[in-house]
């Protein structure tokens, strides 16, 4: 776990949940961290191409997704999505193979880093158009209400995406029609090179929900417990039929916007400040220092995940590329659609 230079400050904490919950958090977050580090490595080897945005630093949100919502709930997010997909329970093999553009990938090599989908995991995808998923997630929630379930749609977007007009249209309709949607702004302080403070007069992102009288909270996104608890409060409200809920989750990405961004627009000190609250390390330390589980148990999880991710890379490496002709698959449901080919 090379991302953290100095050991995190030990915080006073209380043990509120059972051992399984803590270990689920640790395992989920560590899997994302490890997966992303290996992703960056494979990218440097040119095994992975195109745009690639990693989730390192934001893992607490993935951890809480694994415990704070139900498998039947729906999730949709943007292109910074590997960690979200893994938190939904998608397996490392099919995710890594997708990054490699292989036919065994979760979308058969069609999507790459920005576009994982899994109907089986109620994962409605990574969207590459900033903000597009905000109304889409609202519509997914609309369908749940229409069908009479008590599921909701977790609709995730960045601080940059929050400046799209689509957010306001979606928030307004969701509140008016009391749609079951949990909106999450992952405020990692930057949209590419643009700091939140340069994008609006309103830099307190939580206020965006308040103008529609939507219940809105600001959450410490470096704490998996805090995010989990916010999810539980939101879920209770939404499942009771009271309509949408909005969380501004304050988090941080350790890396640049994408693999090609050197992130010169921020200070090293700022980065270090967040690394000191690193969600993976804080959780690991708490598990050990509060005797929730033993060092051996943690080591076993680490070894298992390391092996899992290594095996995912082998799997991706050994899988075949899709045939070029498969480009014509899945553009239409109609099987004999008459493409123009000359």
């Amino acid at each position, binding site marked *: 776990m090379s991302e953290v230079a100095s050991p995190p400050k030990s915080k006073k904490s209380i043990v509120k949940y059972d051992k399984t919950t803590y270990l689920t958090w640790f395992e989920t977050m560590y899997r994302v961290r490890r997966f992303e580090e290996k992703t960056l490595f494979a990218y440097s080897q040119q095994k992975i191409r195109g745009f690639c945005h990693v989730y390192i630093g934001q893992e607490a949100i993935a951890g809480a997704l694994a415990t704070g919502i139900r498998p039947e709930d729906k999730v949709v997010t943007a292109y910074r999505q590997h960690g979200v997909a893994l938190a939904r329970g998608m397996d490392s093999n099919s995710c890594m193979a997708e990054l490699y553009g292989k036919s065994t990938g979760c979308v058969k090599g069609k999507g*790459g880093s920005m576009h994982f989908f899994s109907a089986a995991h109620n994962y409605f995808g990574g969207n590459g158009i900033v903000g597009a998923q905000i109304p889409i997630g609202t519509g997914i929630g609309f369908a749940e209400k229409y069908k009479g379930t008590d599921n909701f749609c977790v609709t995730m977007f960045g601080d940059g995406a929050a400046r799209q*007009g689509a957010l306001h249209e979606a928030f307004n309709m969701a509140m008016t029609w009391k749609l079951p949607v949990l909106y999450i702004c992952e405020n990692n302080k930057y949209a590419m090179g643009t700091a939140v403070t340069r994008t609006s007069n309103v830099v307190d992102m939580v206020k965006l929900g308040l103008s529609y009288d939507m219940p809105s909270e600001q959450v410490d996104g470096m704490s998996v417990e805090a995010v989990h608890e916010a999810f539980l409060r939101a879920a209770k409200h939404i499942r009771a039929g009271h309509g949408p809920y909005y969380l501004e989750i304050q988090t941080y990405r350790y890396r640049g916007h994408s693999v090609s961004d050197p992130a010169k627009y921020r200070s090293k000190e700022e980065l270090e400040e967040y690394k000191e609250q690193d969600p993976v390390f804080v959780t690991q330390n708490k598990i050990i220092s509060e005797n929730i589980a033993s060092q051996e148990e943690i080591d076993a999880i680490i070894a298992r995940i390391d092996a899992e991710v290594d095996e995912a890379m082998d799997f991706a490496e050994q899988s075949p590329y899709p045939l070029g002709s498969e480009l014509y698959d899945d553009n239409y449901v109609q099987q004999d659609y008459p493409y123009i080919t000359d």
Partner: protein
Amino acid sequence: MRRENVKNSPTNYGFIPYLCSLKKLQSMSRVITLREALGEAMSEEMRRDETVFLMGEEVAEYNGAYKVSKGMLDEFGPKRVIDTPIAELGFAGIGVGAAMNGLRPIVEFMTWNFAVLAFDQIVNNAAKTLTQSGGQFMCPIVFRGPSGAAGQLAQQHSQTFESWMANVPGLKVISCIDPADAKGLLKAAIRDNDPVCVMESEIMYGLKGEVPDGDYVVPIGKAAIRREGTDVTIVAYNKMMEVAKEAAIELEKQGISAEVIDLRTIRPLDHKTLVASLKKTNRMVVVDESWPFAGVSAEIAYEMQRYAFDYLDAPVVRVNAADTSLGYAPTFVEEYMPNPAKVIRAVKEVMYQKA
């Protein structure tokens, strides 16, 4: 896909009378990248006319997502080089309003894929301001950014927008990667009193070419013959020019002389230059990265059968991007994109030769 050996390149500047002056200017010239040429065009126009300003995502402090506006914030300050939030519909509309009220905005889209969010303002407003107002309000605005696929970027980030925008009356559409011409065309676009969509290319920003010193514009609406030939006319634009040129070089080795035409402007289409060339070669292949259905190539084929029917020795054949969305895997990119081999095959087809 570098433009090699610029000095001896077959660029025929003499063909279009206007460009004779450009040729003379070339005695004073430098080799710079397309990126730098476009940056110079904007900076020169901003020095010349204080109503010109640049607005878009990451254009100022980050010096442009693809560094086209490098140094412009330092020179012109934040009043004229403006970072926007990610709000394409909003800032395109602000551009339209500013243009209606006496300014000359350059609106940069990080890529044209994101300009889709702004189509309402481009199509419903910029293109219609003059006619709706009975000629009272013009909308002198430039919308610019890269168009076309740029490798393994998958469905949403790989689209080609020339034919979309060229479908709209009221808009002009430029698409050219030759650094000298792209600079002159962008300057013409900024000075133009109508809305102009300028299509660039993410993977061609580093392309080098000889660019004249001093102030010059290249007129909108004129194609350029890049290579003279007698057997077949290959028409292309934007980065497909590199594919067309490569194919022409290979065809030469096989004894086929291809004339290569760079459209440079998509709307209005310079069909006169195309017809003149077709009258000479009697055969035409169009290399067009836009999708085949109602694409630029479809329009050209129509114009040729309409205005040069009697000169055609074979149907016009086109080489387009596949009639699908572009997936991520390298095998999909290979299948999807036009390439020299596909162009050569098309040329053989119009020449009734075995591939």
